[in-house]
């Protein structure tokens, strides 16, 4: 089980960190949430019976933890709150532009209402509508509706950011 846990975390760690970053204001907050998610996956792993894919399983846990994290941390952030996750680790210079683009997008995503943030982050991670519906617990049609609205909001926010 330990091996399986490590394998899951290694394969999905970057995606989980990005997901945690979309619900966190700072790097340490992101790291805390990531730890909480890791712990929750570790605890839930024995109950996993393969009813869904491993990816859906861990994203569901991650989203549940993210919701709890948001709830216990502070009142829900206003969608227009300007938050930043500064990452002070050194980057190669060539990655700077890419990094800036990512930060700009991440900042815009963090300003989305939670229900839209959920679907858009999962879609960006490459989950299908069916998988997103499974993770979030809504109908597939609703996923499409939320995703369309998310796109419109995100487009506006990205334009404001520029």
């Amino acid at each position, binding site marked *: 089980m330990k091996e399986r846990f490590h394998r899951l975390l290694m394969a999905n760690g970057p995606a989980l960190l*990005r997901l945690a970053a979309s619900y966190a204001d700072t790097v340490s907050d992101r790291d805390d949430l990531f730890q909480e998610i890791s712990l929750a996956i570790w605890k839930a792993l024995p109950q996993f019976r393969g009813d869904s894919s491993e990816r859906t399983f861990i994203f569901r846990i991650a989203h549940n933890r993210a919701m709890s994290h948001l709830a216990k941390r502070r009142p829900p952030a206003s969608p227009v709150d300007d938050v930043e996750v500064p990452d002070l680790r050194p980057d190669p210079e060539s990655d700077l532009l890419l990094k800036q683009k990512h930060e700009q997008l991440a900042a815009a995503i963090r300003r989305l209402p939670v229900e839209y943030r959920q679907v858009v982050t999962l879609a960006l991670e490459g989950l299908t509508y069916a998988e997103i519906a499974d993770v979030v617990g809504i109908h597939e049609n609703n996923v499409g509706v939320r995703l369309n609205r998310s796109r419109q909001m995100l487009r506006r926010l990205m334009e404001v950011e520029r």
Partner: protein
Amino acid sequence: MNMRDEFAVWREQWTSAPAVPVQLIQRVERQTARMQTLRTAETVVTIAMGGAVVAGAVVHPVLDQIYWLILAAGTWAGIAALWIVSIRSTRRVWEPAEYTTAAYVSLYVQRLRRELERIALGTAISVLLSAFVLFLVYEGLAHALASRGVHMAASDLAEFWIVGGLVNLFVILGQMGKRRKTKAELAHMTDLQRRLDAAVSKDDSGNTPA
């Protein structure tokens, strides 16, 4: 730009940011801290031991100066060999090549491999150095006593040999335990690296975009 293109661009931007699992970063940082501590310890030992034999060669108390000179030369040769092993084991592994999970895992694995080499060579050199020092001190003492008319056999300094032997035995046993632990960790990490590579190539070969 249509909606699909726009989303594809966002996805690229979203997944482009390198992100390394925190636990992996923490493990690598702990490893770095251990390497720095070891380097500090090596510097202290070099100054203390190397300084002591040089001072001995200058002042030459108890033993004849020739013994002190040979002791100083041999000790410094041993210290130099240990430094070569140490520098080789840490060369270009102080930080990851890039900020990615694969780079961090690769660094971790590379450090463990170097550590195994360092343990084997370092232990061999340390034991040889220790045997050399013990032998020379014994010879020097025997010579010093003989010049005063006192002749002694190896058995007259049984404690000297027993303590020296035990110290070396403990060093060897300790390093063997460390080697076993490092090997187990290396096996675990290389397996993880293999699985990670497999997961990445599987991910690259086809995903399910919304």
